[in-house]
């Protein structure tokens, strides 16, 4: 009986909170808020808050067209794998003190698990056989490389800072980092972590493909790039993945730098984390989106490997010398 109940509990984690249902609603809602905010900042009315939900359901009802040049199976399976992998990553990110699954993945693993949705999108685009998708995937891959270096430096800095504070030297476990923050206050309050937090915040628009780093999609020049040949339900899944990725990356930011604010009740903490995600999105995604124009791909790369990596490196060096 207890086995059955535990199984049911884990199934609940996967399907409802913090799994599919939570991802679906919060991800799309976050995207809706982002779109509304950008519109208001640009003095437009903007779409209704629930527009991403309408888009999703409308796309689901549309016909799916598979191009003649496409590799059919890969083309259709890629969106599903990418989305499932992303939801699993969300399960590992602690919500204040609460983690649904502990002891399964550390921050380095999460870094690589976050690659899977991008890789799925790239393979799907590649399988479509379209040259627009080819250009799109090339840019997406370069963006991934661009974000990787600063992200690695940020994670190493956090691992070192928490590790030396705990006296273990190193700490890769996300739940440990969350617990440390519950006991000692958010990491962002430590001066050495401020550049790292800023670097991570600047990575968020790159990871989620938002302005000015949306070169991989660039509707106006390469017809949405990787999604050029997608239509109907697979496109809906891609849009959903995109929305959930915003949630995942912002909640990872919250877990790493703004942890320790929770109340101990999972549902309330969920709301708090979501509120923090909204604030992070508003500051580093919507605002940046509203005031910038799209960069060229080589500029994206240069920016991440110089400015953002430099910030992260400052943090790493400070953490290294125990500040």
């Amino acid at each position: 009986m207890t086995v059955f109940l535990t199984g049911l509990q884990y199934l609940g984690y996967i399907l409802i909170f913090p799994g599919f249902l939570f991802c679906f609603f919060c991800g799309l809602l976050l995207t809706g808020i982002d779109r509304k905010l950008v519109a208001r900042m640009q003095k437009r009315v903007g779409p209704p808050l629930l527009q991403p939900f309408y888009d999703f359901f409308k796309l689901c009802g549309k016909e799916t067209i598979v191009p003649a040049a496409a590799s059919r199976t890969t083309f259709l399976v890629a969106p599903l794998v990418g989305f499932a992998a992303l939801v699993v990553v969300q399960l590992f990110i602690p919500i204040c003190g609460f983690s649904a699954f502990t002891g399964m993945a550390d921050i380095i693993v999460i870094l690589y698990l976050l690659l899977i949705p991008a890789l799925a999108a790239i393979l799907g685009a590649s399988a479509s056989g379209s040259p627009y998708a080819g250009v799109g995937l090339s840019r997406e891959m370069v963006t991934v490389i661009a974000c990787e270096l600063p992200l690695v430096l940020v994670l190493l800095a956090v691992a070192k800072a928490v590790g030396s504070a705990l006296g273990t030297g190193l700490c890769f476990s996300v739940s440990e980092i969350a617990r440390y923050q519950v006991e000692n206050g958010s990491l962002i309050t430590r001066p050495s972590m401020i550049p790292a937090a800023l670097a991570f915040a600047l990575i968020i628009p790159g990871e989620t493909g938002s302005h000015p780093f949306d070169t991989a999609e660039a509707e106006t020049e390469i017809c949405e790039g990787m999604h050029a040949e997608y239509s109907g339900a697979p496109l809906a899944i891609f849009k959903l993945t995109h929305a959930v990725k915003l949630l995942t990356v912002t909640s990872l930011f919250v877990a790493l730098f703004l942890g320790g604010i929770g109340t101990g009740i999972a549902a309330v903490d969920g709301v708090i984390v979501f509120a923090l995600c909204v604030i992070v999105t508003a500051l580093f995604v919507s605002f940046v989106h509203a005031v910038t124009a799209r960069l060229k791909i080589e500029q994206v790369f240069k920016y991440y490997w110089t400015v953002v990596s430099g910030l992260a490196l400052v943090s790493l060096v400070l953490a290294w010398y125990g500040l």
Partner: protein
Amino acid sequence: MNLTNMMDYHHYPIYAVMVLFLGAFLVAAGGARHSKNPDNPAGARAWIALCATGLSLLFLVLLVKPVMLGGETIAYWMGMRGIAGGYAIGIALEVDALSLFFALLIATAVFVSAIYSIRYMVHDECVPQYYVLYCLLAGGVLGLVLSGDVFNMFVMVEILTFAAVALTAFRTKVYGALEAAFKYLVVGCMGSTAILTGVILLYAQYHTLNLAQLASLIPGSMNDATKLAFAFLYIGFSTKAFIVPFHPLAADAHGAAPASISVLISGVLTKSGIYAIIRLTWFLFQTMELGSMQFMLVFVGSASMFVCVTMALAQHDFKRLLAYHSISQIGYVLTAVGLSSALGVSAGLYHAMNHTLFKGLLFLAAGAVLHETGTTDLGRLGGLSKKMPHTTVLFLIGAFSISGIPPFNGFASKWMIYQATYQRAVETNNIGFLLATVIALVTSTLTLASFVKVTQSVFFGQLPAEYENVKEVPFGMRLAMGILAALCVLTGLFPNTVTSVLTEPAARAVASVGEYISAMGFKSALPTPELSFAHVGVWAPIKWLLLLCIALLALTIASLAGKYDRVSAPQEEKTDTKYQLFYGGERSVYSQVGGGDLFWGFKHNWRHYFDFMHNLHSGVVNDYALWAVIALALAIVYMMIAL
């Protein structure tokens, strides 16, 4: 000698080597005529080679229980000789867990590649000779890792180098094959000569060639001549492992050799070089405690990692690209081994094993493409996934593995390497190890980029009209790839089993030099150290996979309940030009999405670096020979100062 005595497992190491040489002899005795069967021009001789490699693997697998799990070190004297007057007389084999670990990798790769060869080599000339050389190469490498004395290591290096050179030039009609073989011959011979010089210097000093005895004598009596010998041996074995600055040879050799031989050069030959470097640094000279030696290996390893991955990004030939990745992955192994920590050695060996598996798989996939289309030029291929679906899936498994995508094996070992390097950086407070961690992490992403390029330009994208009639490769070739792919997945999903059965015993053997010396019958006061393989990270691939499967299942049910499967039928092919693909006003075939230019955004920022590298790798053998001389000179100076 009765049968039970003959089947004592202490004889198995020599049996494993002998069956391969015997196989070579039997194949050669069968003559050079092609048989009438068009599917197997070597006839029974191919089966002899397959049996020899299979038997060799079997003997080694039977040794896992006593050596890996039982912790025994087998010392085996050939011809009943032994120690006389305090000196080792005669030829000895010594098999500890480290030797056996590498021998198992080698035998697996050799066996799988032999399965593949049967159908792969059907269109070639002189196929029987191919199997002779194949068995010689395999026997040479296996003899090298099982040998108990340093002169035999040199003999085996000679055998394997000449077999490898001949096999590189095997397809004489392939453009560049003879040139590649010549380059390999020149620099390879410089390496072999360096090894011989090192051996002579050691023999002159210590009057023995036995590894165990040398290991007991050298550390207490280091002088300039010993240091010189070390430098010569290190450079000699570096040429065999193709680490920086000998990486251009690998690219040429792999580009020209048949794919089944590329598997051996990359998965087997480079391993023998790495094995010899571990034996030198950890056993013979016992220098791994020194910061200078750790620096050297980590530096060379990191340089190999980064230089070769960027060189790979610039390639537009499938096999040359794989060749550079091969060295890049060897860089990971060398870096991890150079950390001089138990976790590092275990991680490095794990990666060495994974490298043999996934790189073998990738070379076989490249061979499959070459076999069906006749080219490996990334600019001319495309869209093969529709014609060769199985090869595509197998290639993708290999590509995910090498790029370190969870849950495949490359991730498990790289993840251990990241931790080992970072842990070491924190322990020693040395920022150099931290840099190695960052380089390893970034290299992994660049590897992924490179394989996205291959996937896009070979298996996906548009199918050129000339490959309209391409078929899937025969079952024998798919079987060989399937074995390696299955091993890639299994070793990725069960990292704890792999480490406890294979890499940790081997890492323990690396640390217990005293046992290695005393097993041969020499006295050693070296203590057996207490090792800790503890690491701070957590990764449970099975649980993750379970979660992913549940999530995927839920998603699939939801999609099927929705309208995901209501896909409109593909339209019939339209031949009118107005239906053709255009990009930026040009026909899609002329757009920059294919081959070499795919990651323009990255390469543009690094253009000065790429220009520099392009000019440096001139392809002239004189230059590469000069590099070898410079490397040797630097190594000598470094050893004199640092040791």
